[in-house]
């Protein structure tokens, strides 16, 4: 949304200040014509233009307290709401004249106003300023408001429209005179008749909205008006979602918990009508309204809300765990209505009535002899009655038929949604008592970092002050402390509060979690950045750490990490990282000498594992598996049982999971690269067609004939594998099963083979048949160096790649001859970074990106045999991008490139290589893509189309952490050999 007027003001101002003062008047007069307001605006800026130093030239100087403040007060992603002015009577918003304030709600202040055009009274809900300032949210709001405005029902408060005028956004609503149901309920419970009459109308309203796919999300007595003629009007339909703005997750999906902004004060409303799934921050469907409907009906009949508590956490606990006081329902309430309320208030959404039509039916015939909880004959009658209702959906019937609760399951699962505005990063850890969970986050804007904890009995997360930059969290055996690492220091903190205490400082980074036994010994891993890091132990009271393992450099070992204790607390299971022949899971003893630890590998794996209660939890191809571990025989027995697939893995050779002997298991599945739809775009960026289903698609690479695409199922910096997509039918088949870093595929000119980087942090270049048949063949390996192949020459003789982070030279360009001695040669390796090299179709040139002038694309001659007899670049260097250029692709007579990271635009430039000298034209912008990430797309062989891995949603929803309680029960059942 570009403010056209501002652009004019800005252009005129900038033109005017360049002119001598005496000419400005004439210039402005001519430029603004009869637009006097425009002229005044520019003039006011000119008056304020000053070459004198003003406050902006002074640098802010912070006093001591600024940075010494406790981190609990770190700014959060959602800045605290700003206060907004109260509109005075007589003020106008568009055609609406403010008459008087009506009240304040979660979404801003409400005024009685007069529509001066239609000459009617309306309610005007003026949205807070910060709301209007958020362009995305504002646009989304407009769209949603339009949808909500289509709701036209006598029991729904109408939305007339949306008024946007200078700086303010306001919803224009039907003005309904009369008390709310909440006002009425202050006087106590209602008669059955009165309650049923009102409930029926609420059900009508819900039914009409649900039919349109609109969920209320915040149904409560305060949102229900009883108009003077007795007609019930449900207000604020769907606004909860609009207000929350994001996907339907997070506790704030309930506006009742949304901070209300009144002169800077923050007020939290009651969550008493929130459904359990809302309280847990799970995704919502219409059943959330059915729960709230049940709450309202209960309250009308008893005079009190079924789950009211003194505090928010009390209330939430009641919603999640406690049954309402059924005895509070008056004896006069017929069994059918009682059953209806019970079935509305099923905590498990699947057990709940699934369609409001069921409620409508029951309320039509409240006195009918309905089933008691165990009266099959009566139930059958209701069944028949319901079946006769044509509007009742199958879903509704299913909901109604689930009369009896299942016996309480031993193993249960739930999704622990992350706090709003928090980006998960790296670690989860469940406490030994199986009741608490910790995770580490990195704020999207970098402003919230550290550890968060929550108790499973409470949906709220709490940040732990004093844990900035924390990683590798693990718990004390009594679950009262968390140990964590910040860089080189190991610390502990009481979860009840208090500052963290440093236990020890190490010469290298502490990484990969640790373990804490009942004798007060803590063991933890380290990471020497290639120099190696053993496991260490330190007393829980702090002190000097001593090594308990020894990194065997002679075998190529890199580091030891991720210890988990066995039952005796003296032995531990841990991961040794290194080449495939040694990498895997080992068992150690806390008291053994480092050199004497067992070298018997119990599992070869590229990822750390965890031990708990006789099981080893390990990762294979992104699947978390559990298998019995016989510690005496030091071997895995029985069968491996999958726990979850699509487990998120991290760069540090770990999966995001944690398991405790106390019966809790937490893990997080991947979403980052998931749900991306391969989409063809034309040269204008217009969507042409899609390929296959949304899937974990990233790092796209088109075959030379354009019929297939190799994609990776993870982004550049994530562990993943390659897949082949047949573009004719969208079929997707697996190409590799390496679970390794990290490059996209590079195709051989005939399309029969692909090359890619993998191995340990990209230290190996592989090739493989593009059919997927046969093993990977190692082309080149250099431990400690990350490789990134980018182009295979058309003559088949050379593979171009870059390496990363070579000391002094940074990113360098290399070529690997695919014939002869296979000895790579460095083509470019100066103090600038060079990367993303591609061959010209005739293999006489290379194009690449370099930081030589910021970030631009260059072309140089490629000599298959240079002056010293090996491949080299020739004399001459041409810059082909103008101000910025990155990731070139050379197709025929043009080079296509982008402007990452500052933009997401595609550019093209024509090139001429027919002469001895390279020539190129002026770069042209093709289009700006909605998203771009390293390797998100490729260009078709004819350069007419782009194949793009397009995210389905603009903003990916924060993915919850899955928690499994009593996991042993389920594993026992699934593991018959145990």
């Amino acid at each position: 949304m570009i403010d056209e007027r501002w652009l004019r003001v800005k252009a005129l101002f900038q033109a005017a200040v360049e002119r001598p003062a005496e000419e400005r008047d004439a210039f402005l007069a001519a430029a603004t014509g009869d637009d006097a307001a425009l002229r005044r605006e520019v003039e006011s800026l000119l008056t304020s233009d000053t070459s004198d130093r003003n406050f902006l030239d002074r640098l802010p100087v912070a006093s001591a307290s600024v940075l010494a403040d406790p981190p609990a007060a770190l700014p959060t992603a959602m800045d605290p709401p700003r206060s907004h002015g109260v509109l005075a009577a007589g003020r106008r918003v568009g055609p609406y004249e403010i008459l008087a304030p009506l009240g304040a709600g979660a979404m801003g202040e409400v005024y009685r106003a007069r529509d001066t055009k239609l000459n009617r009274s309306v309610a005007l809900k003026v949205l807070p300023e910060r709301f209007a300032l958020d362009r995305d949210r504002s646009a989304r709001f407009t769209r949603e408001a339009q949808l909500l405005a289509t709701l036209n029902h006598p029991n729904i408060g109408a939305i007339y429209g949306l008024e946007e005028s200078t700086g303010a956004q306001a919803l224009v609503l039907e003005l309904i005179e009369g008390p709310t149901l909440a006002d009425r309920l202050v006087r106590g419970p209602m008669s059955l008749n009165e309650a049923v009459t009102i409930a029926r109308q609420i059900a009508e309203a819900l039914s009409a909205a649900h039919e349109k796919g609109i969920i209320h999300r915040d149904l409560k007595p305060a949102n229900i008006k009883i108009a003077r003629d007795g007609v019930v009007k449900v207000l604020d339909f769907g606004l909860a979602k609009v207000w929350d703005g994001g996907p339907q997750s997070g506790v704030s999906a309930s506006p009742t918990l949304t901070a209300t902004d009144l002169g800077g004060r923050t007020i939290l409303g009651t969550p008493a009508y929130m459904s359990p799934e809302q309280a847990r921050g799970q995704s919502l469907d219409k059943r959330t309204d059915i729960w709230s409907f049940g709450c309202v009906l209960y309250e009308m009949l008893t005079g009190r809300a079924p789950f009211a508590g003194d505090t928010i956490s009390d209330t939430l606990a009641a919603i999640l765990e406690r049954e309402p006081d059924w005895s509070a329902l008056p004896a006069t309430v017929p069994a059918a209505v009682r059953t209806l309320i019970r079935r509305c208030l099923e905590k498990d959404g699947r057990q709940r009535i699934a369609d409001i039509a069921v409620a409508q039916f029951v309320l039509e015939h409240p006195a009918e002899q309905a089933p008691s909880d165990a009266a099959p004959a009566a139930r059958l009658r209701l069944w028949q009655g319901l079946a006769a209702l044509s509007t009742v959906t199958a879903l509704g019937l299913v909901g109604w038929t689930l009369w009896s609760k299942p016996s309480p399951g031993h193993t249960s699962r739930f999704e622990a949604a992350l706090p709003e505005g928090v980006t998960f990063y790296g670690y989860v850890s469940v406490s030994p008592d199986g009741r608490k969970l910790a995770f580490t986050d990195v704020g999207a804007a970098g402003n919230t970092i550290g550890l968060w904890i929550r108790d499973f009995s409470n949906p709220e997360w709490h940040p732990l002050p004093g844990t900035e930059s924390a990683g590798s969290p693990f718990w004390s055996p009594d679950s009262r402390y968390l140990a964590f690492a910040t860089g080189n220091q190991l610390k502990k903190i009481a979860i009840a509060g208090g500052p963290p205490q440093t236990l020890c400082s190490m010469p290298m980074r502490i990484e990969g979690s640790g373990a804490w036994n009942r004798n007060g010994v803590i063991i933890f891993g380290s990471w020497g950045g290639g120099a190696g890091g053993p496991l260490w132990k330190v007393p829980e009271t702090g002190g000097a750490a001593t090594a308990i393992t020894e990194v065997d450099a002679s075998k190529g070992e890199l580091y030891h990490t991720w210890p988990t204790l066995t039952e005796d607390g003296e032995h531990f299971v841990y991961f040794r990282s290194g080449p495939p022949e040694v990498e895997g899971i080992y068992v150690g003893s806390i008291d053994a000498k480092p050199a004497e630890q067992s070298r018997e590998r119990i599992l070869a794996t590229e990822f750390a594992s965890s031990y708990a209660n006789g099981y080893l939890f390990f990762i294979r191809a992104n699947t978390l598996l559990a298998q019995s571990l016989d510690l005496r025989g030091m071997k895995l027995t029985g069968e491996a049982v999958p726990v979850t697939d699509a487990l998120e893995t991290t760069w540090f050779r770990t999966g995001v999971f944690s398991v405790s002997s106390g019966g809790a298991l937490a893990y997080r599945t991947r979403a980052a690269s998931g749900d991306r739809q391969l989409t063809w775009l034309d040269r204008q960026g217009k969507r042409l067609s899609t390929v296959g289903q949304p899937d974990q698609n990233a790092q796209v690479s088109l075959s030379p004939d354009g019929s297939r695409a190799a994609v990776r199922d993870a982004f550049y910096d994530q562990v993943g594998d390659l897949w082949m997509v047949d573009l004719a039918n969208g079929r997707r088949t697996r190409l590799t099963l390496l679970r390794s870093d990290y490059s996209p595929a590079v195709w051989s000119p005939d399309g029969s083979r692909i090359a890619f980087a993998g191995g340990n942090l990209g230290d190996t270049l592989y090739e493989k048949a593009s059919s997927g048949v046969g093993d990977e063949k190692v082309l080149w390996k250099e431990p400690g160096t990350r490789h990134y192949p980018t182009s295979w020459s058309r003559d088949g003789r050379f593979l171009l790649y870059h390496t990363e982070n070579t000391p002094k030279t940074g990113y360098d360009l290399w070529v690997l001859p695919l014939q002869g001695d296979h000895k790579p040669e460095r083509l470019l390796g100066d103090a600038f970074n060079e990367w993303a090299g591609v061959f010209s179709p005739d293999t006489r040139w290379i194009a690449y990106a370099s930081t030589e002038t910021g970030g631009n694309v260059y072309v140089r001659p490629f000599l298959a045999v240079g002056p010293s007899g090996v491949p080299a670049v020739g004399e001459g260097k041409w810059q082909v991008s103008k101000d910025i250029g990155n990731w070139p692709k050379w197709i025929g007579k043009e080079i296509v490139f982008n402007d990452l990271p500052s933009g997401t635009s595609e550019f093209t430039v024509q090139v001429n290589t027919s002469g001895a000298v390279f020539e190129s034209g002026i770069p042209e912008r093709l289009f700006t893509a909605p998203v771009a990430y390293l390797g998100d797309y490729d260009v078709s062989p004819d350069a007419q189309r782009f194949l793009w891995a397009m995210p389905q949603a603009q903003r990916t929803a924060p993915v919850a952490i899955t928690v499994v309680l009593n996991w042993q029960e389920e594993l026992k059942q699934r593991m018959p050999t145990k």
Partner: protein
Amino acid sequence: MVSPRDVTALLADWSRGNRTALNQLLPLVYAELRRVAARQLRSERADHTLQPTALVNEVYIRLVDQRQVDWQNRAHFFGVAANVMRRILVDHARRHTASKRGEGVRCVSIDEAKDVAASNGMPILALDHALDRLETMDADLAKIVELRAFGGLTIDEAAHVLSVSPSTAKRDWRTAKAWLTRELGSDGRP
């Protein structure tokens, strides 16, 4: 935060188009800013003041391997740090205006950095609020103010971060200053 790749590598990754590198970079910068500041305040400055730009500089020297980073990456780093600095100052000002007005954040001119006695109250909150408004109209203008005022970037460096020419950056800076001066007055008081 967890990162085997140091800030240098993250900066390089980011400038190559790896956008998640920024997410990993920010917390490192943030943590280091606070740490260095706390140390400086304890030991070095009796007057309990800091210059954020000097602070950012020190953090840069500590976090980034000078041999591997060119000046463009330096500009990007300062761009990131400017935003972090703004958040720290604004957050602080918010909390402190509630109790004691204006305490905690003072400003001095570049030339008078040592003469704190001559300082005026820095209208951090007013500036932040105005910048937010400016951003809805013209994000580039708001960003250049952030880079200059909170990150201490030169016009050329700011131009690089914003991917505009230095002359555009200069014009935009002048425009932004005029707009903010009109909104806030020449001493920054609305």
